[in-house]
């Protein structure tokens, strides 16, 4: 079982990184959207490997099934050829390059420092067996208040969106 888990983990990790890179470099927006979806799916795969199936499901339904659908909607409706014509890389690419270099160095440093703790066989960490129940209990018992506040916030956001849309159309 051990080798299978590891093999899957490596597969998902490589997939995630590769599609992330591909997403950034594509010229055609729809292709980059699809690669974003593959990234999200591979992270969901990793959740599953960690036996956090509730997160796996939420990741798929929420991110890929919900938010990304709206992304693709917007991509189709927005007027593409104008943005196509604008020059993709304006003159500040030099500054951008330098900054990303600095960031890369920091990442490397962090990995180098923590190399001791990082061992690949992370899958046998013990998480509460029944993931869904565990999440539910935590959510509705200890973190009741934040949960309610979050839901009200979402409600307000939804109503706001509808009102804005109505005014534009009306």
């Amino acid at each position: 079982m051990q080798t299978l888990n590891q093999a899957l983990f490596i597969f998902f990790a490589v997939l995630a990184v590769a599609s992330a890179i591909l997403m950034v470099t594509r010229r055609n927006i729809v292709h980059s959207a699809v690669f974003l979806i593959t990234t999200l799916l591979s992270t969901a795969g990793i959740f599953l490997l960690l036996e956090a199936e509730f997160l796996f499901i939420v990741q798929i339904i929420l991110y890929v099934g919900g938010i990304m659908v709206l992304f693709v909607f917007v991509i189709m409706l927005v007027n593409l050829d104008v943005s196509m014509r604008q020059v993709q890389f304006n003159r500040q690419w030099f500054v951008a390059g330098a900054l990303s270099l600095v960031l890369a160095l920091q990442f490397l440093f962090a990995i180098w420092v923590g190399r001791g703790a990082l061992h690949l066989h992370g899958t046998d960490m013990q998480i509460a067996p029944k993931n869904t129940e565990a999440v539910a209990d935590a959510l509705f018992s200890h973190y009741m208040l934040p949960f309610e506040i979050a839901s009200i916030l979402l409600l307000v956001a939804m109503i706001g969106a509808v009102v804005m849309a109505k005014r534009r159309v009306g």
Partner: protein
Amino acid sequence: MGHLIPPSIMPFVLPVVYAVVIVAVLPLLAGYIVLMERKVMADMQARLGPMRVGPHGLLQPIADAVKLLLKEDIIPDKADRLMFWFAPLVSVTMALLAYSALAIGPAFQIADLNIGLLFILAVSSLGIYGIVLGGWASNSHYSLLGALRSAAQLVSYETAAGLALISVLLLAGSLSMKDIVQAQSDQGVWFGFSVPFGFFIYLVGSIAETNRAPFDLPEAESELVAGYMTEYSGFRWSLYFLAEYANMVIVAGIATTLFLGGWLRPGARYHEHIPGTGIEWLDALPALLTLGVALYSLSLAPKQPVKIQKIVMVLVAVLCLGVAGILAGALFAPPAVMQGIHGAFWFMAKVFAYIYAFLWIRFTFPRYRFDQLMRLGWRFLIPLALVNVIGVGVAIVLRQQLAWGPIVSLIPTTLGTLGVAMFLAKDDAPTVAAHLVDGE
């Protein structure tokens, strides 16, 4: 056979076998559902339906499949090749993936996930990409409009269907398909009866989710020609077609498991059934039914005009006899085996009954306009589903606190939901009586 396969792969063998069986059977099943649809449509419209290929058109699906494979596979010139090839693939894989959690019989299930239902919902919600990307890739005005419309429709009706399922989960208590059916068997009542509104909303939601019948706007022939499928032809089109029918079977499967008691025989009291103390007549029903079909097809065999059709008819009769034999044999087998075989039969019977309801609705109702469709979804179904969930919740509290019986506690809440439904429906669509009066 167990020692032949190294232990580390052992848990994967049975699911793989089941998966292969399902993926092989599915295209055939989809083909025969198409034939069933055309036959049912025909006799509803006072005509015969396909009679030419094979006796009573029984070989029609094979002919369709061959035709689709031989057809030229056109890609529109300026279409986005990668996406054009990728889109139907997405919708088919998502449709097939959903089968992994479906429990056809007590034994016949690829993977008994403890989040079975949620997994199927998640995967079917990914099916939208196949449609949306397909519409975009074929780079034609009509298919883009069709794709956008169907995406909007799917998203809005999924919420309604999801809420309907939640109301059942409150009663079932678990997400795994097997436990849900077990709960229905323990409570001795099918959830379809205890949560009628949940069943109704899910029925409407599932029709909309598979783009069928009054909600088949995306490929409404009259305005958008064929919606997102316009530019597809040949094998690619058949992939979409297969995905649609696979979705239909999944949706029917979910409805059967949740509302019609999965593989339970009507009035099943499995735990009281003591083997060998006389067979309840209901158990014999499956065997008798298939026997009847076998005899009927035998009687039809001589009347077939063409010799080859006679042979095929006889083959069909022999096949039915075989199935009847198995079902009858299972009666005397140990209960586990009997449950397995009969369970599968009852499950398939209910699935086909559900699909028949799909077809029935499809041929009686005209098509909804897009804004009416959306209005029905958002202003009628989703609020009703919310009220239904609250109703079931209240019923459960009543049962636990005041210890009312399972049925007694559900009655008041269902009536409450009925009241809300009447209120919502009042202003939604113009009531029929109103406009018959004016103008007369």
